[in-house]
């Protein structure tokens, strides 16, 4: 006898839900349109934010204010450090003290890069070798401390977290031959979020032995890159200009400039995303407008009846808005899930993302990442719902103004 369930449920929300259910095809079309738009928005946002955030984080994690490389190697250095592309570029080691003498330079360290040659002299998979000076180093040391808690000894190497050598293997005490010299791979570096994750590290002293052995293409007293820290409150750009002005054999990349080429590409891609999203939004607004115009005409008599039993113009608007918001929220939720899924699954299809050194979603700490995703999701739901409301406002405004008697008269005419 009791109808308790219906007692608690019946209200404006129930009416809105019933109206959405009455034409499931039309509802599906609207929800799909909003979902696709929001998915595009989410994908574009994630893509853009991930690339720029990865570049920013990677350049910050290197811990250097300036990267000093041989003239013409500016892009190579960035490609190696950000995109893990194997690169070799060299300059004379005698540049190092000249850099150190420049005003504003506080400390410097250097690295030398060398590509392994599979099969001939090395039994590791093709990889980038990084030799670093343990005395002056401030790039690798923090990660090394966390990994093995000590400096590398003679004949010891350590593998980056993304190297082939670390694919599911316990690396401790693995013997490898690199340029005919036996190395003990003593550990794996923590993920740094830079190109260092794709390299095998050794000390400069070991590299000198390899060079002396003549099995590598590298010559004595060559280095690849100098990392410099500058004094507090100094402008890296101006110090960089000083370095380039004093040492014509080098190019300087400031921390802020790191990834500028990638960011330029990203800016172009962004324009395409923005254009697509705006066009998608306009199309969706038109679709919602067209469908709600049809809905308003169809329901003229019902609206007349509701007005006759006491609904005011604002009640009618609220009922329609509720319907529109339900559509918008449902479409936006699906779109958010779809956009996130697409981004996750298609990440590797985009060279811009694939070439970045680390999985883009692992850059931030989890709480910050979740907060960011939640904010993006909430903003997308607001945008999707807003677009839906924008499209429906015209028809709603028109129908609310009809006198109840006129609405019902229309329905009588239709029935006859």
């Amino acid at each position: 006898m009791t109808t308790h369930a219906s007692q608690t449920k019946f209200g404006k929300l129930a009416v809105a839900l019933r109206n959405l259910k009455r034409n499931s095809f039309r509802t599906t079309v609207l929800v799909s349109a909003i979902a696709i738009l929001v998915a595009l928005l989410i994908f574009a946002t994630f893509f853009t934010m991930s690339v720029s955030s990865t570049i920013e984080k990677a350049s910050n994690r290197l811990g250097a204010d300036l990267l000093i490389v041989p003239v013409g190697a500016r892009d190579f250095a960035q490609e190696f450090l950000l995109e893990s592309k194997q690169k070799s570029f060299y300059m004379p080691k005698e540049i190092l003290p000249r850099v150190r003498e420049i005003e504003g330079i506080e400390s410097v360290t250097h690295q030398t890069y060398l590509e392994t040659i599979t099969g001939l002299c090395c039994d590791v998979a093709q990889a980038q070798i990084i030799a670093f000076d343990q005395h002056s180093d401030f790039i690798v040391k923090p990660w090394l401390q966390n990994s093995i808690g000590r400096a590398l000894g003679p004949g010891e190497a350590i593998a980056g977290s993304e190297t082939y050598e670390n694919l599911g293997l316990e690396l401790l005490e693995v013997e490898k031959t690199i340029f005919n010299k036996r190395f003990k791979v003593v550990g794996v570096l923590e993920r740094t979020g830079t190109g260092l994750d794709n390299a095998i590290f050794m000390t400069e002293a070991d590299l000198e032995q390899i060079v002396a052995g003549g099995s590598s293409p590298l010559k004595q007293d060559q280095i690849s890159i100098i990392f410099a820290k500058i004094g507090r409150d100094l402008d890296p750009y101006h110090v960089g200009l000083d370095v380039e002005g004093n040492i014509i054999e080098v190019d300087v990349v400031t921390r802020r400039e790191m990834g500028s080429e990638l960011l330029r590409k990203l800016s172009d891609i962004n324009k395409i995303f923005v254009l697509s999203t705006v066009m998608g939004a306009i199309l969706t607004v038109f679709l919602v407008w067209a469908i709600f115009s049809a809905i308003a005409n169809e329901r003229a008599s019902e609206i007349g009846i509701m007005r006759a039993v006491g609904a005011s113009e604002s009640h009618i608007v609220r009922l329609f808005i509720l319907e529109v918001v339900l559509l918008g929220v449902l479409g936006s939720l699906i779109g958010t899930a779809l956009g996130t899924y697409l981004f996750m699954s298609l990440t590797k299809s985009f060279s811009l993302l694939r070439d970045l050194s680390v999985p883009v979603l692992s850059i931030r700490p989890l709480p910050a990442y979740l907060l960011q995703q939640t904010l993006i999701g909430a903003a997308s739901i607001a945008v999707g719902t807003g677009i839906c409301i924008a499209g429906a406002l015209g028809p709603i405004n028109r129908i609310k103004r009809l006198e109840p008697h006129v609405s019902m008269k229309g329905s009588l005419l239709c029935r006859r």
Partner: protein
Amino acid sequence: MSQVEISSLNKVYTVGGEQITAVHDLSLTIEKGDLLAVVGHSGSGKTTLISMIGGILKPTSGTIVVDSTDICTLDDAQLSEYRNRKIGFMFQFASLLPVLTAMENVLLPRIFAPGGGSNHHRRAEEYLDVLGLADKRHAFPGELSGGQQRRVAIARALINEPELILADEPTGDLDEETEADILRLFHQLNREKEISFVIVTHSSEIAAECRKRCRMSHGVLEQEV
């Protein structure tokens, strides 16, 4: 005690540039507890008259004073509240929302009422029971006969316990037995709850059962019987 005072009421429609007078200089008083029949031919202005009394159509000129307030001067929100609280409509057609069940259709006015729709389910159930629809509460209008739909509309008109029910051909397409049931209910409500009724009808039998009768012709209230 007068419940509705209508003075010099006019309604002129403009259709295709032509002006059609639907109601002309009409004055009428409805007393509390009246059971008034308005008879007349099709197009005589009967429906227009009760639409204006019910506040779903604005008159061209004249006044309709209900409880000392001229409803012609009310804004949309006030007029909606007036319709919701004081008026119960029964239209020529059943006028149910097809997506709502019988019970929900009855409760529809409550969702627009101040205070919402709570605590009125029992009353809605009672009306549906009285109207012989106890087993049809959860049926949709498409699953009900014409007579059943009409009875649901009656229950909906009663749910807010209005002071005045405006019924436009309330038994127009119903069989004699259902018509008699509905008229009996009107009399009962009129007698027990002092609800006033204005019933627009073609039927001289229905008109004969009302305590007051008036006739409309070409928009003019010709006589009170």
